[in-house]
């Protein structure tokens, strides 16, 4: 087990190196950046960047330095803003995004598994049809449609919830409800459908028949025998789900005006603030890579058949 974890940890390294390398070349090569002299940068910023990256050094040395800085956790100065460096802006907004993401993914997992289980146990009843209809909505309708529609119905028409804002920025806790639901919707759909189909398949399997032949109750069979096996596809879906949450949060933060990393990201991509964009991508990638790692470990703990060789 420990061996397996170490092996997976080592597997993370090339991914991170590639991300950082891509980042380096984006900052360096990107047209319209500060280095081809076309765009006027604030003098201070320009000097900062030049000093930071030792622009006149050989490329390899610059690359090495950049790599070292990033690994140390220093993402460099912003191209746009001269007051603070990239780290400052990122870590100011990151907690908001993490909060939103965690709530959304928990919502989608809990609701998705619950409704998927209900649908599979009550197959071909209204419970099944309702939860699958919701799931299809989650899968088919993009969240930039779901978000505004929810906003229109619940915030503007019914006035139950605030349209936008964020509780750390002066709004109340209700501000988190609509963004979290919006963000959770897509993954909810996938998880509910996955749960349903994998549960149905598990319930048809031989070992469930054995459990029935033993004289077990249906509820006990579902929770003690079927659950564990049926959860495996859901666990392996969680990797893509995290990626989806990250991507989705970019839109959701935009729609609901949440001061998170995603909103920052879009802004800086309009500003062509490359160091900031790249910084955000590195942070996102690291989160994603860690999440994927955790998912893999959880999976291997759930399935005793996986051998750690």
């Amino acid at each position: 087990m420990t061996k397996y974890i170490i092996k997976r940890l080592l597997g993370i390294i090339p991914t991170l190196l590639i991300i950082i390398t891509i980042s380096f070349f984006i900052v360096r090569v990107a047209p319209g950046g500060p280095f081809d002299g076309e765009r006027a940068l604030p003098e201070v910023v320009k000097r900062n960047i030049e000093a930071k990256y030792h622009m006149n050094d050989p490329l390899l040395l610059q690359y090495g330095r950049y790599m070292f800085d990033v690994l140390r956790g220093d993402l460099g100065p912003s191209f746009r803003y001269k007051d603070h460096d990239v780290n400052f802006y990122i870590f100011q907004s990151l907690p908001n995004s993490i909060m939103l993401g965690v709530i959304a993914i928990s919502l989608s997992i809990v609701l998705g598994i619950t409704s998927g289980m209900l649908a599979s146990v009550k197959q071909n009843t209204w419970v099944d049809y309702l939860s699958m209809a919701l799931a299809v909505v989650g899968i088919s309708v993009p969240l930039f449609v779901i978000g505004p529609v929810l906003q229109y119905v619940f915030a503007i028409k019914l006035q139950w919830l605030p349209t936008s804002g964020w509780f750390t920025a002066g709004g109340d806790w209700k501000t988190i409800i609509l963004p979290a639901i919006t963000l959770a919707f897509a993954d909810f759909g996938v998880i509910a459908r996955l749960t349903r189909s994998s549960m149905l398949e598990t319930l048809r399997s031989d070992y469930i028949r054995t459990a029935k032949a033993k004289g077990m109750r249906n509820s006990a069979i579902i929770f003690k025998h079927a659950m564990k096996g049926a959860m495996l596809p859901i666990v392996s879906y969680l990797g893509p789900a995290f990626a989806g949450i990250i991507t989705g949060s970019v839109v959701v933060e935009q729609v609901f005006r949440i001061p998170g990393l995603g909103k920052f990201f879009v802004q800086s991509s309009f500003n062509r603030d490359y160091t900031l964009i790249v910084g955000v991508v590195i942070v996102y990638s690291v989160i994603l890579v860690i999440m994927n790692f955790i998912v893999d470990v959880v999976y291997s703990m759930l399935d005793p058949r996986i051998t750690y060789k």
Partner: protein
Amino acid sequence: MKRESGYQMKNIMRKKQLPQTMNEFDQVVKGNSLSKDAWRRLKKNKMAVISVIIVSIYILLAICAPILPIYPYDEIVLDHQNLKPSFSKTSGELMFEKRLADLYTQAWRQGRLTLSEEQNAILETWIDKNQATKVWDYMYVEGNRQLESGTFTFNTAENRTVNNLKSKIATDLQITVDTIWTTDPQTGKKLNVEKLSTEEIVNLYATMVGNTPQQVITQYTVEIEQQILKQIKSESTGLTEAEYQSLLQADLAGFSQKERDNLTKDNVFSKIAAIAKDIAASDLKTAATDATAEFPLNKEIQIKDSLSASVKATKMHERRYYLGTDYVGRDMLSRIIYGGQVSIAIGFIGTLTSVLIGVVLGALAGYLGGKVDYFIMRVVDIMYGLPYMLLVIIAMAIFGRNILNLFFALAIISWLTISRMVRGQIMSLKNQEFIEAARSMGASTPRIIFRHLVPNSLSVIIVFSTLRIPSFIMTESFLSFLGLGVQAPYASWGSLVGNGVGGMTLYPWKLFYPALAMTIFLFAMNFLGDGLRDAFDPQSKNQL
């Protein structure tokens, strides 16, 4: 508890049967190809059939967009900003209503239009809740009532505004000049001005403006030079004036006499056309004001001397917007159809490209195995670990926001899953006998891959591609929504929704119609994909 179907048995049995026995043993078993079988199953699936119909309608609309009787998607009519959708009312009526509601509301604010305490309270709560639409609608009805009953009258300025608007709505025309004719004074023959020679056009124009032909030519030579200079300056920046001049001279030297003539001709002709349009406009406007002409109108108008023009004219404010207009008065219906064209095209072509890349790489990895496989799969693994959507955003930020870049960025990142799937399929197929047979007969590797292996994985590829199209469209719309994808004046569903979000309190139709159009299509595509998957692979029912 599956039963053996006993097909072979039936075939064997047939020869032993007596002719008079009619039971299940002597039924001839018809061979069914996989695709035929799948088609039969698909037809049974109601949702899938409905989806096929819906998708076909969408595609048909997208393809036929240029010949549909809709307004151009990029035509800006500033008078028609944010008009609400209406089947019964023309744009002029809607404009008028809007204006009146505005005037009534102002009058109410100024205290000239008085309402009961109750009414005031209702309006105040609406205003508090930011529901301006309700206020306007209410004020429009209430104002009209009071105007009729005489408890409220417009003041002079308001009266003038209303009358101006009325006459504007009645007389604003949209005029297109189709052809300009000239009648030869000697022969009386009518000629199309556009088809005349340069010399003739110049002469014509010279007589029109009362100059000599020579003067006209000199004037236009200067104009053309200025045009070219402007172009040069926009292409290369940072040169001195002298350098520009030398570039210009070099360019001009490169022109032949004929090219020069053509340039002159084009310039002069557009001038004539502009004059024709002006004259026609003022003519028709009088006609519209006096109500001496019927609109829409299509007739020949005398311009000057021997010139006449075939002109089409419609009343500007008789347009109808079934789905409303956007913030610069463009027709939403037309924008949704053209936006659909862009979205669907990107969805289909993008999917095709990514599937092609994925199939080629996946097939190579699966068939060749070894180092090639290892390398391709490592690339796939690593790219899977990246938040690729964000990389697409970066790519758009760096390389510029246009459709082509968007398309490439999407195609490059979306071949991963399909390549993995094809690889798996190929690996399971490649050790089967028919591949051995092909190999033993000396078939080349590419032949084996693309004539034997890929066709056998086709059902998987088709199903995947169908499910891929909606997600491709979603990705494209996602970027366009953020403003990083398709740029105005072009539209895509994503950018339309994105534009609609801002003003959704006041103009909800700008959000809902594009969202609805998109949602229906995505639903249909998803159901179609599910249906296809179930049809091709009935065992994996409801698998994702």
